[in-house]
C-alpha cells in the first residue's frame, strides 16, 4: 500500500500557509468592493473611515472567528475520532453542536443572556456537556461503531427539536425565524463582542484536547492495553469531555451549529500523516481553520438574495469528499 506521509512539520507548514492565504482573502473580499490598496491603507491607519470600519469592525472579527471556530471544530473531530475509535465521530454527527445550539437559544431568546455576558457560552457549554456525557456513557457499552453514531443522531435530533420548540415558545415573535442561523451556522454580522465570548472558550478547549495525543495513540491497542501503558483513562475522558464541551460550546454560542468540519478535515489529513491519532490533532485544527475560512469566503462570494448559511457550504464541500473517502478507504479509515 502506497503511503504518502509527509514529515510532520512540512504538513503543518503547508496547512498554515493555506490558512494564511484564506485569512488574507477573507479580509480582502466582502459585500463591498474595496481595492487592496485602499484596505492596506486603512490597515496602516489612514483617514478612510469607510474602509477602516469595514476592515476592523466587520471583516477582521469575522475572519478571526472563522479561523478559531474552524480550528476548534476540526480539532474536536480529530480528538473524538481518536478517543471513540470511530472515524465518523465529530461534534455535529454526535449531536453535540446541536445540543450547544439549544443551550445558546435558551440563553438568548428567554432573556437569560442579559444577566451576564458569560451566561450564553455557559449554557451552550452545558448543552454540549450533557449530550457528550450521554454519549460517553453509551460508548462504553457500544460494540459496534454504528451504535454510537445512531445514538448521536438521536441526541442531535432531539436537540434540534428542542431548539425549534424553544424558538417557538419564546416570547419574542421573531425568534422562530432565526432557527436556520442556529441549525446551519453563520458568521454574518459578527463583531468583536462575539470574538471575546468565543475565543477564551476555544483556547481552553484547544489546550485540553491537544493534551491528549499520547492517550489517543495508546488507545489504538484498546482500553486495557492503553491503561497498561500508563494512560489514565478517566482523566483522558474528562479532559476530552470538558475540553470539547467548552470549546464547541463557545464556538456554537456565537456562530450556531456548523456541521461536517470535524468530519471532513481529519479524513483529508489522515492520509498525509502516519495515521496515528496524535499526528492528526494539530493539523486538523489548522486545516479546520482553513476550511471554515474558505467556506465563509464562499458564502460571501456566491451571489444569493438571502444569505447562504455556512452549514450549507460545508455540507456541499464535505459530503462528497467524505463519500469518496468512504469508498476508497473502506478497510482502512
Amino acid at each position, binding site marked *: *500500500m502506497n*503511503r504518502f506521509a509527509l514529515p510532520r512539520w512540512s504538513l503543518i507548514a503547508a496547512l498554515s500557509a493555506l490558512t494564511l492565504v484564506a485569512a488574507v482573502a477573507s479580509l480582502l473580499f466582502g459585500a463591498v468592493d474595496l481595492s487592496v490598496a485602499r484596505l492596506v491603507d486603512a490597515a496602516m491607519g489612514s483617514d478612510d473611515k469607510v474602509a477602516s470600519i469595514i476592515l476592523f469592525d466587520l471583516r477582521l472579527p469575522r475572519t478571526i472567528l472563522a479561523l478559531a471556530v474552524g480550528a476548534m471544530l476540526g480539532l474536536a473531530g480529530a480528538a473524538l475520532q481518536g478517543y471513540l*475509535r470511530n472515524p465518523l465521530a465529530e461534534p455535529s454527527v454526535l449531536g453535540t453542536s446541536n445540543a450547544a445550539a439549544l443551550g445558546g437559544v435558551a440563553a438568548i431568546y428567554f432573556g437569560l443572556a442579559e444577566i451576564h455576558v458569560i451566561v450564553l457560552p455557559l449554557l451552550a457549554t452545558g448543552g454540549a456537556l450533557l449530550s457528550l456525557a450521554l454519549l460517553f456513557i453509551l460508548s462504553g457499552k457500544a460494540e459496534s461503531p454504528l451504535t454510537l453514531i445512531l445514538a448521536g443522531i438521536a441526541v442531535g435530533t432531539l436537540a434540534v427539536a428542542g431548539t425549534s420548540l424553544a424558538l417557538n415558545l419564546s416570547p419574542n415573535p421573531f425568534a422562530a425565524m432565526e432557527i436556520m442561523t442556529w441549525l446551519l451556522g453563520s458568521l454574518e454580522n459578527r463583531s468583536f463582542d462575539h470574538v471575546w465570548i468565543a475565543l477564551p472558550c476555544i483556547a481552553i478547549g484547544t489546550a485540553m484536547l491537544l493534551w491528549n495525543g*499520547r492517550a489517543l*495513540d*495508546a*488507545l*489504538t*491497542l*484498546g482500553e*486495557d*492495553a492503553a*491503561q*497498561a*501503558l*500508563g*494512560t*489514565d483513562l478517566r482523566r483522558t475522558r474528562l479532559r476530552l469531555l470538558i475540553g470539547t464541551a467548552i470549546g464547541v460550546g463557545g464556538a456554537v454560542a456565537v456562530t450556531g451549529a456548523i456541521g461536517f468540519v470535524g468530519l471532513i478535515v481529519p479524513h483529508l489529513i489522515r492520509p498525509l500523516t*502516519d*495515521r*496515528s*491519532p496524535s499526528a492528526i490533532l494539530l493539523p486538523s485544527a489548522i486545516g479546520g481553520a482553513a476550511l471554515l475560512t474558505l467556506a465563509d469566503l464562499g458564502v460571501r462570494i456566491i451571489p444569493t438574495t438571502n444569505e447562504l448559511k455556512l452549514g450549507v457550504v460545508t455540507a456541499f464541500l464535505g459530503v462528497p469528499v467524505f463519500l469518496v473517502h468512504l469508498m476508497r478507504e473502506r*478497510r*482502512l*479509515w
Partner: protein
Amino acid sequence: MVTISLDHVGVTLGRRAVVHDVSAEFGPGTLTGIVGPNGAGKSTLARAMLALVSASGSVRVDGVDAAAMPRADLARRIAYVPQGQTLHWPLTVERLVGLGRLPHLAPMSRISDADTAAIERAMERADVLDLRDRIATELSGGERARVLFARALAVEAPALIADEPLASLDPGHQIDVMDMLRAEAAGGALVIAVLHDLTLAARYCDRLLLIDEGRIVADGTPAEVLTAERLRAVYGIDARVETGGEWPTITLFGRAR
C-alpha cells in the same frame, strides 16, 4: 528485577465472584502459565495483577500496592499483551511498536535515541524487522501476533503478562510465540501467560497455575500439576499423562464418562 505478590485476591464482576481467594508469588526468570477451563477467571486474574479491575485482598508489585501505584510506574514494571489482536488504526509496524515506549516518555517530549534503540531491539527480538514499514492491520494473524509482542517488548519492563497470545495462530506461529516467551524468561524477566493449550503449556512453562471457578486448584511444575485425575476433575476429559521425558505429554481420549 520485579516481584508480583497476590494475597487472598478476589474479583467480583457484576454480581458474580469471578476470582476467589487467590494467593501466589511470582519472581523473575520464570515462565508461569495460567491454565484452566473457559470462564475460570484466568484473564480476570491477569487483569487484576495489572490493576485493570478492582480486587479485594492485595496485589503487590515490588511490595507496593498495584492499585495505589501511579499508572505510569506500573506500566514501566509490567508489559501487557491483551487478549485479541485489537488494533484500531492502520499504523506502520514501526510506529506501533513505538507505542511501547509511551510509559517512558515525559509529558511533552519527543522520542529519544534511547527509545529508538529500544524499538529496534524489540523488533529484532520478535523477528519483525522486515515488516517495519508494513501496515499493521494488513498483516496475517501470525505476523500481527509477533508485532504486538514486539510492542510489549519495547517497554523493556522486567515483567510481561500475555493473555492468550496463541489464539487463532497456526502451530508454527504458536511455537514462535512460546519460544519468545521462553527467551524472555531465560533473560531474567518475570513472564506470565494465560494459555489454553495444555500441550504447549506443559512443554514451555516452568510453573503452572491451574485455575478452576476462580480458585487455584494446583500450583507447581507442569509434571506436578497436570495429572490425569486433575484433568478429569477440572476439564471433564479423559486423558493420559506421560511424565517420562523432559516435559509431560498429554494424550486426549475424550469426554469423561
